[in-house]
């Protein structure tokens, strides 16, 4: 039964917040393609590249926020991590498709040159490629089937986020403010994990001594 509580649940809110920008971008693209005024500037493809790229990095960072927030705030939000991660994949996919289709229109010569010879693009491509198995194994039955390997595989998210933030930083021409903020947030999130693991290591050592 659909109750009011369910409609206004955190899950629905997260869905709306995550999909909202995509819907807004789609609407702007529709305006653009139908010749109406839009906000995508005179170079909409460039705008879409920036928008979806930033979206991917931010969804990845938000996904990485879930665990620390759940622990520190004692909130029961771990169950939303998968949903947010899948949205990161969606943004990454849009970013990738925009590059392949709108920006380069399958110009393989240029695309291969880009991926092989330009580190920033190489990093971005590796990050996206790594996101695919994570998205593919995000279903509950895969989780059960894979057991411990699931967690091992999904630790890739750290490498993916580091690559994505680095790619973002490298692609900016001069104004590195936004990618620097992304990098700082990532640094905090990674430090938290290092700290937690260090605590674990310490306590387990103590136990052994005792």
């Amino acid at each position, binding site marked *: 039964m659909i109750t009011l509580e369910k409609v206004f649940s955190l899950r629905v809110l997260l869905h709306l917040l995550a999909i909202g920008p995509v819907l807004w971008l789609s609407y702007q693209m529709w305006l653009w393609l139908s010749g109406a*005024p839009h906000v995508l*500037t*005179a170079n909409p493809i460039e705008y879409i590249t920036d928008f979806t790229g930033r979206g991917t990095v931010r969804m990845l960072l938000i996904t990485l926020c879930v665990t620390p927030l759940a622990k520190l705030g004692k909130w029961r939000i771990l169950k939303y991590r998968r949903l947010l991660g899948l949205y990161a994949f969606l943004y990454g996919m849009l970013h990738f498709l925009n590059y392949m289709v709108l920006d*380069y229109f399958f110009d393989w010569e*240029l695309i291969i040159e*880009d991926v092989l010879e*330009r580190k920033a693009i190489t990093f971005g491509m590796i990050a996206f490629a790594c996101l695919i198995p994570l998205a593919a194994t995000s279903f509950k039955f895969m989780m059960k089937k894979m057991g411990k390997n699931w967690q091992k595989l999904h630790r890739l998210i750290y490498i993916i986020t580091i690559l994505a933030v680095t790619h973002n930083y490298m*692609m900016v*021409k001069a104004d590195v403010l936004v990618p620097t903020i992304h990098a700082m947030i990532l640094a905090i999130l990674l430090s938290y994990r290092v700290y937690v693991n260090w605590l674990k290591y310490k306590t387990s050592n103590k136990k052994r001594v005792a």
Partner: protein
Amino acid sequence: MLIKIKNSWDLNENDVTSEAHYLSRRKFIRAAGVLGAGSAANLMIPNLGVSQEELMPGTNMYGGSELRDEQNTLDIITGYNNFYEFGTNKDDPVANAHTLITEPWSVTVDGHCDNPGVYSVEDLVDHSKLEERIYRMRCVEAWSMVIPWAGVSLSEVLNKVKPNSKAKYVYFETLVDKKQMPGQAGNVIKWPYREGLRMDEAMHPLTIMAVGLYGRKLANQNGAPLRLVVPWKYGFKGVKSIVKISFVERKPNTSWMRLAPNEYGFYANVNPKVPHPRWSQAKERRIGDFGRRKTLMFNGYGEQVAYLYDGMNLRRNF
């Protein structure tokens, strides 16, 4: 009878970025009367490749798509700019450049020349000699436009102040004023914006000092009241809102070179064979087009300018 002798570098009027937009814009301006009244002093440009009379009949040709063009391309050239003094987003300059005060404006000329001093724009740019030059503008970011500038050859300007034989390079600076240029509050670039040309490049007839666009005074976001246009080089060489011209012996250290010397060179000639470290320069997107087109060597002006670089390694001197 007035005969327009076409130069080999001249583009046709239908190469101008969204001609339909231009036409509809004029119509829009006439109808609205707002912009026209706002910048009352339209420039008088003799001997135009495109005259207003010639354009008007064409307006009807675009009847079907007129409304659409008017809306989706409204102010492309004045609405999509790299002018970090007003913010780093492409739509920042149009939003912020209104704070720039261009009258009065003075330009300091110094260095190796016979007539150094402080000049007004009118002293340097003779309005009776204004020409319209329809040039391709290729940005280093791999997009391009076609823009009908109004200006005079830079050589006309420089000859007034008479550089001497010690002048090997000419160096330009943009205004620095945090109040007028809000983007200068941040340190994205070490202000002022600096640019320069070798003397032979500066004296080349294709190089112009522009004061107008579409037969009107330059909009602030396009570099009012006067800016450099060097059509065979990447757009960032076109220093805007110039307040200083110096004749120097040594190659000036220009803004983008300082910022990333491995990515932006002094020459910055458009060259499809020399990629930017982070993207290819082989193709470009003409604003308004969907796909990319091939980038031309020297932005298509090789016939006129290639000799300037005879014997030079353009890969090294990028």
